[in-house]
């Protein structure tokens, strides 16, 4: 069969959010991949500039439904750093508990989606049923299953009733047993083994060159986890290990995520059993002094960084969000060349894409009525030129 262009997206049952792959395939083997990821651009960075610190937090929460706590925690800890504010220990511990619960629900969701991508709907339903237990715990702690609205500048908005803790710990025990079950299943179930192993191979050198982060990088043997390398919200007090392995393929990423599920349960148990007494919030000052902060966070998908520039008002002057999915897209384009058409949904799902997080850059050329995507070098050159002109150098 000659080369055909198979349009995967923007609408496609494999994708949960719009993204455009133009796959050029020779029969069933992929020759080239062209990526267009700007379909979910909503102008959040601009909208954040016109809201004060109280009203901007719910906006940032809704950048993404699955990593909503990540975005808000990252932002408020950046602002707290600019203000020089210390958050009480109990507040930090509660932030850790919600963060790890979010990681758990994200990984369970991912496991279900990966199973669905290979047509294994039974595993999909089972993991999502167990995910309900995590959602119920989050509902008890924060009042909502998604978009928990528990962060604010200075601490958390709600306290945890001590009477709720034994129930949560019991549910964690059940989740631990289910996680072990899934690990057993994945090791021995034949179809997941042949669909995941050897697919989407990314060597360590490639992973480093293309800047992959999160479980995608950790499955290629790169030991990089912001919680250990640049700890925040008292992660240095939590006992956990960074899960890596050397497989480099989708199977490796599955193992990393299930390992992280285990570690998250450990962290939550430790945090709940050693919850310090005291207040959960500190009153922040009204304005944030002039500062430029790069705030980093280990979201379920990898390293999330917010660049925040404050200018002595009660708003940010500039917010730039660099999500982990944006960093991982290049690795998809690279690792899919030479694979089969049938592997596209599996490899795309393996980086756990969150398009709502990603779409921050698009170039719309109204004169030529054309949209284009800038390559890394073009973007760098453009950025340097832009700022040189703006600051009159």
């Amino acid at each position, binding site marked *: 069969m000659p080369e055909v262009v198979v349009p995967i997206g923007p609408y496609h049952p494999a994708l949960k959010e719009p993204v455009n792959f133009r796959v050029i395939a020779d029969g069933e083997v992929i020759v080239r991949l062209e990526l267009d990821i700007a379909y979910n651009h909503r102008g959040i960075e601009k909208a954040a500039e016109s809201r004060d610190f109280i*009203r901007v937090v*719910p*906006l940032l929460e809704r950048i993404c439904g699955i990593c909503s706590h990540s975005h808000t925690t990252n932002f408020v800890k950046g602002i707290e750093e600019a203000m020089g504010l210390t958050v009480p220990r109990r507040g930090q511990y509660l932030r850790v508990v919600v963060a790890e619960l979010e990681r758990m629900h994200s990984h369970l969701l991912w496991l279900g989606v990966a199973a669905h991508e290979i047509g294994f709907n039974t595993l999909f339903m089972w993991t999502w049923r167990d995910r309900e237990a995590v959602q119920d715990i989050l*509902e*008890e702690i924060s*009042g*909502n299953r998604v978009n928990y609205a528990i962060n604010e500048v200075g601490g958390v908005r709600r306290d945890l009733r001590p009477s709720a803790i034994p129930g949560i710990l019991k549910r964690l025990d059940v989740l631990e047993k289910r996680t072990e079950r899934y690990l057993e299943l994945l090791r*021995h179930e034949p179809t997941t083994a042949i669909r995941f192993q050897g697919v989407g191979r990314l060597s360590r050198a490639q992973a480093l060159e293309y800047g992959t982060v999160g479980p995608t990088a950790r499955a290629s043997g790169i030991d990089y986890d912001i919680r250990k390398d640049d700890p925040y919200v008292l992660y240095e007090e939590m006992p956990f290990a960074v899960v890596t392995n050397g497989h480099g393929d989708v199977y490796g990423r599955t193992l990393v995520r299930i390992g992280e599920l285990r570690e998250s349960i450990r962290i939550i148990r430790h945090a709940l059993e050693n919850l310090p007494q005291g207040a959960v919030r500190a009153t922040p000052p009204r304005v944030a002094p002039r500062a430029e902060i790069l705030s980093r966070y280990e979201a379920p998908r990898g390293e999330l960084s917010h660049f925040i520039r404050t200018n002595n008002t009660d708003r940010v002057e500039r917010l730039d969000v660099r999500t982990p999915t944006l960093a991982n897209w290049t690795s998809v384009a690279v690792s899919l060349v030479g694979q089969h058409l049938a592997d596209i949904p599996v490899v795309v799902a393996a980086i756990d894409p969150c398009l709502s997080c990603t779409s921050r850059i698009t170039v719309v050329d109204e004169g030529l009525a054309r949209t284009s995507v800038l390559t890394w070098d073009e973007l760098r050159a453009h950025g340097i030129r832009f700022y040189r002109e703006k600051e009159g150098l």
Partner: protein
Amino acid sequence: MKRGRALTGFLGEVARNLRSKPATILYPYEKVPVPEGFRGRIAILDEKCIGCSKCAIVCPTECIEMVPGERAVEVKGGRKILRKRKPEVHLFACIRCGLCEQYCPTDPKAIYLTTEPSGASTDKGIIVR
């Protein structure tokens, strides 16, 4: 054989699921259990509102509108004041964040989130007063 054991474990789970009750809650015939502190539908307690507009200012989606509504309200210390405005909420713009409840100065709160989970309606412009 390891594969055989895991496969029997898997088949065992499958067989067990065939016999057990499904995990589905048949809403709306069965009620969904909701924990205490759940952020549900918004409600307004008109007798306590002093018309300070803090809720409208802090709302992230600007779904609270202060409309004229005169009423004599009793405040702490037994005094009575005449409030001039009161809030109205566009229900489908409310994201149930609870910031209005947090910043409301009265006790008990004049604007608060109930634990009612459903918010369905056929009227797009429904207002909570």
